[in-house]
Structures are given as C-alpha cells and as structure tokens.
C-alpha cells in the first residue's frame, strides 16, 4: 500500500496502463511538457515520448475526432479534456461517433477510448470550470460513465476504463485531486471488483444515501452526523453511472426503505432522477417514503462566491435525510 493523492493515483494508473499496453496513447491540451494543468500526466512525456503523450492543438472536437481515428487503427486513446466545461465542443464526436460506431458496425469497429474529465465544482473556479455534465453521457447509449471518489478507486477504475473495449467517460472530481488515500499499486487488475459495481462505503439500516464523486465524503460526514442522533445511514458510492449497479442499490433500498440521492449536477433529468425512477420501479413496495433528491439547483453554475449556495452540503443532506425519515426538519418543520 502506498499513500497517494487522487491526482497522483490517476497518474500512476495512466503510467501502468501505458506499460501494460503499448497501444495506449494520451491526447490533450498541455498534457506534455506541462503535465496537464492538474499535473496528472506529469512525467509521462519523458517516460513514454511524444508519440504516446501527445500535446494537441486547442480544439476538443479535433482531439476526440482524432482519438476515433486512432481507435480505427487499433489504439486505445486516453483523452484529457482540460476542464469539464470544455467537453461540449467535442459533444458531437462523442455522441455521434464514439458512442455509435461499435453499434453501427455491429462490433467490427471498436472504440476503446477513455475520455478523462476533471470535474465539478467547489474549488472557487471561474465560469465554465465547475460543470457536472455527467447526465448527458449517462443518457447517451453506447458510452460507459465512471465517476471516482478516492485514490484507490481512481487508480483501479482508470486502468479498467482504459482496458475496456468500450468508450468510457471518466469523471475525476477536481476538488479531491489533492486528497490522499492508500493505494495498492501492485494488486492485479483481474482481482479488482469490476468497473460497473457500486460500493457500500458505510453500511446502515435507516436510510440509504446514494451519491458519487466528491459528494461521497459529504455523504459520509452526513452519516457520521446522523449517527450522533441515533440514525444509521447506509452510504452508497455509485462509482459507475452507466451502467448503474441497481442490484446493489436495490438491495440497500429493500433494507432501509428510505432513499436520498445526491449530486452536484442540476436536478432536471439528472442522474438522481434516473436512480429514483429505477428504484421506484424495482423497489416500490419496499419504499416507506418518497425518495428525495439533493442536487445543484437548475441554474447555470453560479459565480464562485455563490457556489456554496448551489452545491449540496452536509446540512442539505441532513435535511433531506430528516425528510425521508419523516422527522421534523427544516422544511416540514413541526408538521411532520
């Protein structure tokens, strides 16, 4: 076990993937000499050379389109999008090409492309640097979507994503890049849990708190705070947003009967809507109260000084927990 930041774990994952398979090539803006604006690819240019760590012109559609061409030739391109808000110029190539070519060709053309996206808010960044676009990709058939929440998972999932023969949109919570955790760099990939599984990060019995990415730690804090009040929360880190591991989710909901789903992304037609609709379909008779969402508001990501009023925090989670538990709380007040 090695203690690494999430950022360093991702770098280690890239390095290992590149060692494992010489068809793995990295593409992106500033990923070479600079090592990326978040330094995730630091050192890889020196180690693997400019044919495998490729600084690109400043054009996201071009980068992803080129990755498609490399995939046609048998490569496994790993694209770095510099910030979440800059993935949209590549949207057409992702949705119409990356996601569809395997299906169109009935599997004759594979698109083992990983698109890494430094992701989400909470870092006081400027406009367009704090987006949570995951729902767009979850809604897009043909893609897999991964969101990591800790160094160990980051290291392992990234290697799995790169090794996958399917395209993977890989979300890296920016605000955790410097968070540390133990990583087992030696554990064989084959022994790791498959990429599509959720993880119960804290077992509990009274209600299930489902989230992913940086909000997993907020959820854990909420669970601790709730424990002080005698409430036992089960916390699930989805890890994979497409597919969602509904077997694990449903098992938890059948146990607790009460659910809160949380994410930073805005609410309308977001991932939480999907999770709640699926839970309702599968576990209706087990539900003891309406599953609730705690999400960013349906506003464009606000300026930095206002982001704390946009992002779900401990209090908003606890408020929702109270409500699914039918406890008196901020909104229902004494009425409940």
């Amino acid at each position, binding site marked *: 076990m090695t203690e690494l930041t999430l950022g360093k774990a991702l770098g280690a994952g890239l390095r290992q993937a590149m060692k494992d398979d010489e068809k793995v090539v990295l593409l992106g803006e500033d990923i070479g000499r600079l090592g990326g604006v978040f330094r995730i690819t630091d050192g890889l240019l020196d180690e693997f050379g400019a*044919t495998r760590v*490729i600084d*690109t*012109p400043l*054009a996201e*559609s*071009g980068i*992803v*389109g*080129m*990755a*498609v*061409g*490399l*995939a*046609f*030739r*048998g*490569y496994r*391109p790993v694209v770095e999008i510099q910030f979440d808000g800059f993935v949209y*110029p590549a949207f*057409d*190539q992702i949705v*119409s*090409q990356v996601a*569809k*070519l*395997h*299906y*169109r*060709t*009935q*599997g*004759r*053309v*594979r698109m*083992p492309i990983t698109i890494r996206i430094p992701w989400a808010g909470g870092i006081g960044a400027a406009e367009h640097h704090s987006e949570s676009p995951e729902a767009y990709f979850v809604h897009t*058939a*043909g893609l*897999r979507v991964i969101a990591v929440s800790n160094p160990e998972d980051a290291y392992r999932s990234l290697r799995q994503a790169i090794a*996958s*023969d*399917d395209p993977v949109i890989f979300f890296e919570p920016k605000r955790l890049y410097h968070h540390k955790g133990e990583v087992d760099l030696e554990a064989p990939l084959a022994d790791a849990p498959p990429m*599509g599984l959720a993880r119960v990060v804290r077992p509990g019995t009274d209600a299930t708190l489902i989230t992913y990415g940086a909000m997993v730690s907020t959820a854990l804090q909420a669970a601790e705070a709730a424990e002080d009040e005698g409430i036992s929360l089960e916390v699930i880190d989805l890890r994979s947003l*497409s*597919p*969602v*591991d*509904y*077997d694990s989710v449903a098992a938890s909901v059948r146990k607790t009967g009460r659910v809160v789903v949380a994410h930073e992304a805005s609410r309308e037609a977001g991932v939480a809507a999907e999770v709640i609709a699926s839970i309702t379909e599968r576990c209706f008779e087990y539900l003891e109260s309406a599953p609730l969402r705690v999400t960013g508001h349906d506003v464009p990501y606000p300026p930095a000084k206002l982001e704390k009023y946009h992002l779900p925090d401990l209090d908003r989670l606890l408020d929702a927990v109270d409500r699914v538990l039918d406890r008196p709380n901020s909104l229902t007040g004494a009425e409940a």
Partner: protein
Amino acid sequence: MSPQITPIADTAQDLELSERILTPDGTRIANPQLDAYVADVDAAQLRALHRDMVILRRIDAEGVALQRQGQLGLWAPCQGQEATQIGTARALAPQDYVFPSYRETGVIYARGAQPGDYVRMWRGEEGAGHDSTALRVAPLQIIIGAQTLHAVGYALGISHEGADEVAVAYFGDGATSQGDVNEAMIFASSYRAPVVFVCQNNHWAISEPVSVQSQYPIAGRAPGFGIPSLRVDGNDVLACMAAMRWALDHARSGKGPAYIEAVTYRMGPHTTADDPTRYRQEGELEAWRRRDPIARLEAHLKSLGELGEEQFAETQAAADAVAKEMRAACLGMTTRPPLAVFDGVYAEPHTGLERQRSEYAAYLATFEGEA
C-alpha cells in the same frame, strides 16, 4: 505580410480554372505538373478506368431504381462525379485507408465492395453497409465532415508506426464550412500526418450553391494551413488520378498532408428525397452535361481508336451484371430479428442494457403463437 485577397472564383468558369489533362471534348493536353504522374497509364488502363466509370454509373442508376421501387429508404446518387471518385480511388494503394462521406459509391466500388455493400445501409438493414476492415474503408459518414478528423487520427497512427500507408478523407464542398474539417487541416498540418483530403466540390450542398460556403476557390484554403493543394478538373479522370498520385506521394514520403479540390458536378438530386428543380436551373445542368466525365474519356479513347464496339458492349454487359447482382443482393436481404436491436451496443456486458434486453425478450415472447 500585406493585405491580400484570394481572387474571387468564377463559378461558371470553375472547371476551366482547374488543372486538367483531358479537355471536355476528349483532347489530351500537356500538363507539366501532372503528366509525370500518369505517364504509365496506357490504353488498357484507360479502358479499365472507362469501364469502372460505366459500371459505377450503372450501380448508381440501380440504387436510384431500387429506391424508387421502395427497396431502399434513400440513395445518394453520384452521377457526374465518376471521374473524381474513380480517378482518385484507383490511385490508392491497397494498404491505404479511406474515410468517406455518404456519396462515395465509386470509392467503395473501387475498394472491392460486395454487391450488397452498396445498399445495406440505405435499406436500413445495418448501420454500416460494408465491412470496414475488409475494404479498408470506414463506414459511410453522414455527420458532415466528422470523418476528416478520423482520417487525421488514423494517419497519426500510421506516422508513429512509420507504416507505408496513407489515410484519405473524402468530403463535399458544403463540408468545408464545418469546424471539424478545418480542425482536421490544423491537426494534420501540426503533426505532418500522412493524410490526403479530397474535397469533391460538386457545386451544391443540397440547395446551397458553393458560393454560400465560399466565395473563393476552396483549394485556396489549404495553403494557409501549411497544406499544399491542387485544384483539379473533377470530370477528368486522368487529372484526378494524377492529382491523387501527387497527393499520395506527398503524404507517403513523410511530407505531411495534401489537399485536392476536385471540381465536379452533382448531375442528379442531392438524394432521392430531393427535388433539385426547386433550386437550380436547367441551363446549368445542361452546361455540365457537356462536360460529362464518361463521355469525355470515351471521346478520348475513340480518338485513339482504343474503344471498339466489342469493348463497349462488354463493358455494358459487365455493368448490367453488377447491377443485377446488386439488385439480387438487395432483394435477398433478410432483416435481423427484433432482439438484434440490442446487438453490438457494447463490446463488454452492460448490466443495464442486458436487463432491458431480457425484459424485451420476455415481452416479445408473450406474442409468440399469436396470429
């Protein structure tokens, strides 16, 4: 660098302003720049090119007929563009890889398409009409311009491996307005990737004349990106072949990308769903009929005494045979079973989709035995 303006293209004179070897009446003229690239093309090869173009036109006519008869959902005719497609595609080496748009029937023909390959996609049976790996041609691309970037990525792979291959992107005049096509030139130039861009300027993007996309010759854009370009008479199969050989040589020898604008004309509708009488004049069509690429080579061959009746008849018979096979393949196609709708979305199991598939299978099963 001083203020400068590229000369405005005179679209009526477009063809005359481009490189050629055969004039519209079939006369061979000297072209110091291109001649060397087709010095080896003898009468037999010219006849083969003629044969290709005749067969292609026949395939195209069969496609239109099959659509009119309800056998295809749509067809994108390439009549008028035979010289561009055959001339450039016959210059390819077997190991080269093509990224076409949707109108390159002649290119997939030249790459060895099977009879059913022409129609499988247009009939709505499969998402891709042909086997990309077998033909070394990517699936037809409908998203305008997207394939140009794929070609650049592929070419980057070629260059990193030092392979003796070239990637080729085909696209239309309308496509030149898309961001992707411009990004493709930029990336190709920065990486000196072995890619050849072939713009088939057929003067129309559906109802929009090329002047909506550019009031200046399209080939004039490439040099600004550091890419050498040639503007060639796209109805002159020899000039197209020569230009393509120049471009392929350039790319193959490590000098980076090259760009060809083939000036041609779409004689038919945009697709079988289109009605070109709404937007273009019969006179324009008439003028282009006189520049027909097949008639031109025929006149040339005849002037050489190299196209006899017998040869002519054999070519027609060959074309009819291909069309017949194509029709038979089309009519013989069987649609995949309902559950095939789920096939090939992912290379590895996806639990969400697997569940949907089995639910749908169970649902379908309830109809079994029903009338």
